C-alpha cells in the first residue's frame, strides 16, 4: 500500500526538469536574438544607404573631371589632361571639394590604368565602423576615352 502510493506520487527527475528548462530558455533566447538582430539590421541598412550614395558621388566626381577636361579642350587632348589629374593610386583625400566632411565615413577612390591607353577603372570604397567591425561598400565604373585626337 505504501509502495503503491509512492509510485503514484512520483514527480519529475532532475534530468527531466533540466531538459524542460533548457528547451524553454533556448526558445526565449532565439526570439530575443532575432529581435536584437532586426534592430541592428535596420541601423545597418540606414548606414548602407548613406554609404552607397557617398560611393556613387566619388565615381560621379571622377566622371565630371573627365567630361570637364574633354569639353574644355579644343584639340582633343582632354583625355590626356584628365589622366594627369588622377591620383597615382588610391587616395582617401581625393574628395569633391564641397562638403567633404562625412561623419563616420571614409571614402577611398582608386584608379586602375592597366586596361590600355583609352580605359580606366574607378573604384570607390566607402567604409564605416559599426557594431563589431568595419563595413565596406565598393562601387566601380569603367571610363573610356570616346574622343578622337
Amino acid at each position: 500500500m505504501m509502495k503503491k502510493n509512492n509510485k503514484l506520487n512520483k514527480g519529475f527527475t532532475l534530468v527531466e526538469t533540466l531538459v524542460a528548462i533548457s528547451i524553454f530558455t533556448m526558445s526565449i533566447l532565439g526570439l530575443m536574438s532575432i529581435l536584437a538582430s532586426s534592430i541592428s539590421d535596420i541601423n545597418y541598412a540606414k548606414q548602407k544607404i548613406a554609404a552607397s550614395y557617398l560611393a556613387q558621388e566619388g565615381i560621379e566626381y571622377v566622371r565630371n573631371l573627365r567630361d570637364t577636361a574633354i569639353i574644355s579642350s579644343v584639340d582633343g587632348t582632354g583625355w590626356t589632361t584628365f589622366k594627369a589629374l588622377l591620383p597615382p593610386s588610391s587616395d582617401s583625400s581625393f574628395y569633391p571639394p564641397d562638403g567633404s566632411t562625412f561623419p563616420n565615413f571614409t571614402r577611398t577612390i582608386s584608379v586602375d590604368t592597366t586596361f590600355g591607353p583609352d580605359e580606366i577603372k574607378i573604384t570607390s570604397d566607402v567604409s564605416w565602423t559599426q557594431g563589431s567591425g568595419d563595413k565596406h561598400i565598393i562601387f566601380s565604373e569603367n571610363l573610356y576615352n570616346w574622343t578622337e585626337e
Partner: protein
Amino acid sequence: MKLFFKKIINKNNKGRKALVEMRGYTLIETMIAVALFLIVITTGLGALLSANSLQKKSQDMRSILDNLNFAMEDMSRNIRTGYNFVCIVGGSPLPSDVSTPNNFHNCGGIAFESGTGRISDPLDQWVYYISNNRIFKTTKSPYDDSSNYIQLTPDEINIDAASGFVVTGAEPGDGKQPFITIKLVGTITTPQGVSTPFYLQTSVSQRIMDM
C-alpha cells in the same frame, strides 16, 4: 447476522480506501500552481507585447528609410539626366521663371530641363524645392504656385536647414560639365517617438555633354 455486519464493514472500508486514493489537490498545491501560472503568463505576455512593439518600430523605421531613399534616388536620377540647371536660393519666394541657368552654393531648390523636356519650352522645367522641412517636387508650371508642388518626403522626416543643393558648371559656355551636390541632413521620428538623425549626400554629373 454477524456475517452481514462484516460485509457492511468491509464495504465501508472499501469505500474509505477509494476515497483516500481519489483525493484531489490541497489548497496549497492549487495556490502554488495558480501563482506559477500567473508569473509565467505575465512575463510571457510582457515579452510578447514588447516584441510586438519593437517589430512595429523597426517596420516603421524601415518604411520611412525607404521613403527617404526613394526621394534621394528620384532627385539624383532626374538631375543626372537633366540639363540647364537653375539654383533657387533657399528661403526666397519661388520664382515664376526658372529657365536661365546659374550657379550657386546653398540652394534651397533646383530647377532643370528634364531628360524628356524641350529646351525651347521654358515652362516644362522640373523643380525640387526644400521648404518647411519637407522636399517638394513639381513637373509643371506655374512654378510660383505652391499648390502645384507635391510632397516627396513624409511628415516623419524632418529636413534640416543644412540640406540643399550645390550647383557648379551650370552656366553655358563656361567649359565645365555641370556638377550638382545634393545634401540631406535631418531627423526621422517614428510615430512611436523614436528619433534618429540621418546624413545623406551624393553628387551627380550631368550625362549630356555641355557643349
